[in-house]
């Protein structure tokens, strides 16, 4: 097994190098045979990565502790699902997962029906192969997944209990699919530039892939937030940790790209900008990996410190320099087709403002994340840049972003006149202001909340009007029933209405964030058995403290009966779990969820006489956040779904070469 598993990595590396060389040679000599050989190499490479994954799954599943990775991250009593998910608990395994996804994406593109006979394929393959060479090199020489130990330990070190949560199954996988997914638009962009293609084809194909990567990146972040909320016991979901920032930055720049690409499609403008956004998004995924793997910054997500980060930094540097070189060498070609604007107030300009804010937000995150390093380099003083900084700096930028999002759908392409603006915005603006006044009257008086919810009211109305006008216009021509008209309207314009659904999702998430950040209430109390804790409308009766055993873990739990306004909601059990093979205990919180708010109960400590300390928190509107996340997924899927209408495979009109 040892030989087989290692062979998958080293043969993989050899194949990757071979395929890269043969594809490049094929491109330069215009020899289809060589290209086909390279394509065969892609399949072999995928098989190698898949076999390496299966090998590691097998070793983890059967607890073969003679392997360092297995003994470092699992133990024999661990449930099988966590034994398997330990594959991405450490450096080497998670990079293997990354490599596997990379090879998977590569063959999906190289052998896709839409790309058949397309001369871009060899270039895209070569660029992705260069990535694959790097990853196989790392797996072969830096972070080796199949290292044997000198002595076979009887038991493994076990998996960090924090990672023993369903979040572990899905969060890293989706996040990596998003990360790796951003390499695809990068490869498309580079291939197009090298080929001097400035047509629409690549941008349409790239957008699809970017939406897919964007969707996975969103899912990764959402699942991460949900996991933190239920597992860490602090009642939050986003901590602006360097690693969270690392996945948020490419999300922001990819979002910017998805919007600005519409201008390129419509007006044949902003080509350089769009390609730059793709390069930046891709580079940021590598930068994120550098942050996680190098240990230069303190983070709850950090892997064991290693020199791995340095390799990523070098790889990122090389990739960015090469990409910029290609971009500059094609500068004239891209510049030539620049168009014009008709007015300051138009959909085009609002997209540009949207880009400004999204990239500005990404820059602010980037600056905050690296500032500790900058400060240390400049002054020799290390500073911490944490949650208060990011909340203060990002809140105005992202709120302005919400405002642009609210206004943009109502602006016309080309030019919006004053009359047009008045007609479209008078009613939504009045309603938003009325809403804000009502909020103040009803007691919502925090400035951020009032402004934030006001903007969201505006957003909801403008989006409603978009749907309403679409349905009305369709009915005028077809006399369909409203629901039928809505359905047909949407499936015939998937991208547009999918995008609006995503906007609504973001609005719900923002409502959840504003509610939970501004109106959360918390208390920490020590009570004796039979006593109760009161917080707002809730009364929590502490009724029992007991202990049970689950496997090798000891669990201390309390029975708490919860009443809301005198009405009994039930008995709940917050727990503290003590692990047989881990020093730190962890909290299993009790969450009582409703549309209005979550009651979050943590059993913090107890004494011999039965007294116990609880942290009780009320988090308003948390379900709005999860519901919004769900809408984002629905919207993004709706936009990329290959329906009967629209989304026709774009026709390639670019440069023709003899090889494909």
């Amino acid at each position, binding site marked *: 097994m040892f030989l087989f598993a290692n062979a998958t990595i080293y043969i993989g590396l050899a194949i990757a190098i071979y395929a890269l060389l043969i594809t490049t040679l094929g491109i330069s000599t215009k020899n289809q045979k060589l290209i086909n050989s390279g394509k065969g190499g892609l399949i072999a490479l995928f098989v190698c990565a898949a076999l390496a994954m299966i090998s590691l799954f097998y070793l983890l599943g059967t607890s073969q502790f003679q392997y360092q990775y297995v003994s470092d991250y699992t133990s024999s009593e661990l449930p099988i699902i966590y034994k398997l998910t330990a594959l991405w608990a450490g450096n080497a395994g998670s990079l293997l997962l990354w490599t596997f996804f990379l090879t998977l994406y590569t063959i999906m593109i190289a052998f896709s029906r839409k790309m058949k006979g397309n001369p871009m394929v060899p270039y895209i393959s070569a660029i992705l192969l260069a990535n694959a060479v790097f990853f196989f090199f790392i797996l072969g020489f830096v972070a080796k997944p199949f290292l044997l130990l000198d002595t076979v330990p009887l038991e493994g070190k076990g998996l960090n209990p924090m990672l023993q949560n369903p979040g572990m199954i899905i969060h890293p996988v989706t996040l990596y699919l998003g990360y790796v997914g951003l390499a695809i638009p990068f490869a498309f962009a580079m291939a197009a530039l090298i080929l001097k293609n400035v047509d629409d084809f690549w941008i349409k194909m790239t957008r699809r892939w970017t939406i897919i990567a964007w969707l996975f990146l969103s899912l990764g972040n959402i699942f991460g937030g949900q996991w933190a909320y239920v597992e860490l016991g602090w009642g939050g979901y986003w901590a602006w940790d360097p690693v969270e920032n690392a996945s948020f930055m490419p999300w922001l720049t990819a979002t910017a790209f998805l919007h600005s690409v519409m201008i390129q499609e419509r007006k044949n403008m902003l080509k350089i900008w769009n390609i730059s956004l793709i390069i930046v998004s891709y580079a940021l995924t590598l930068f994120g990996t550098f942050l996680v793997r190098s240990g230069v910054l303190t983070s*709850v997500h950090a892997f064991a410190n290693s020199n791995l980060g340095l390799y990523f930094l070098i790889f990122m540097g090389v990739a960015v320099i090469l990409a910029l070189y290609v971009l500059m060498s094609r500068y004239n070609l891209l510049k030539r087709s620049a168009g014009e604007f008709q007015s*300051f107030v138009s959909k085009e300009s609002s997209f540009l403002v949207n880009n400004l804010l999204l990239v500005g937000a990404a820059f602010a995150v980037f600056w905050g994340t690296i500032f500790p390093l900058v400060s240390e380099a*400049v002054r020799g003083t290390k500073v911490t840049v944490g949650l208060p900084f990011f909340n203060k700096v990002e809140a105005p930028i992202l709120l302005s972003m919400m405002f642009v999002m609210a206004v943009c759908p109502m602006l016309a392409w080309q030019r919006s006149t004053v009359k047009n603006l008045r007609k479209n915005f008078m009613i939504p603006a009045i309603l938003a202001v009325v809403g804000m006044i009502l909020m103040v009257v009803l007691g919502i008086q925090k400035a951020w909340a009032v402004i934030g919810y006001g903007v969201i009211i505006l957003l909801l109305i403008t989006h409603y009007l978009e749907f309403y006008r679409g349905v009305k216009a369709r009915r005028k021509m077809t006399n369909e029933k409203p629901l039928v008209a809505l359905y047909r309207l949407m499936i015939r314009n998937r991208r547009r209405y999918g995008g609006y659904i995503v906007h609504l999702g973001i609005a719900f998430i923002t409502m959840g964030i504003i509610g939970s950040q501004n109106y959360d209430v918390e208390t920490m109390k020590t009570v004796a058995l039979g006593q109760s804790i009161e917080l707002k409308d809730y009364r929590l009766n502490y009724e029992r403290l007991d202990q049970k055993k689950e496997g090798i873990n000891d669990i201390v739990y309390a029975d708490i009966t919860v009443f809301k306004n005198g009405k009994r909601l039930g008995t709940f059990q917050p727990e503290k779990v003590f692990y047989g093979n881990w020093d730190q205990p962890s909290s299993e919180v009790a969450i009582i969820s409703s549309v209005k708010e979550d009651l979050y109960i943590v059993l913090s400590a107890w004494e011999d006489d039965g007294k116990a300390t609880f942290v009780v928190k009320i988090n308003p509107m948390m379900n709005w956040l999860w519901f919004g996340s769900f809408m984002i997924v629905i919207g993004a899927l709706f936009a990329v779904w290959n329906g009967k209408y629209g989304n026709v495979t774009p026709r390639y009109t670019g440069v023709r070469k003899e090889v494909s």
Partner: protein
Amino acid sequence: MKSKFCLGLLIIAFIFQGSFLRVEAKQFDYKSPEFKAVASQFACTCGCGQDHYECDPNTCNLTTEFKADLVDMMNKGWDKDKIRKYYVNIYGEEILTSPEKSGFSLTAWVLPFVVLGAAALALFIIIRKWVKKKRTEEPVIEYQNTEDEVEGEILSSMIDEERKKYL
């Protein structure tokens, strides 16, 4: 005598009540907004990556003592700025969860907005250039309605659909 005894009992009860109250007052709510305002300024250095408000005193000894010190200072009547100054003097800026708004650290706060402002200005100039270029070339369409636009799009998609059906 009886009334004196009763009075004595009352006094004892009163004293005890006082001590009970004091016991009650000893239990400080580490999750109160007042404590949050003070404690969330300081980063816990135990490696948890949280501030001293969030950090769990049951798993981190460091924060237990830190929290107790903070409460002492609050009881002395120190406000959050004074407490902040006190700790910065001892540990330096590193103890804070966000950089100071003075000296070099001010750049952390200001630079994002300076960059954003500069980029906004650049964007304004670029759009103005594009608009001017367009105006000199051709007269602009005076009025275009989003409603017309939506109708136009729907119409063209329907025509497209029909065309596909028959051609």
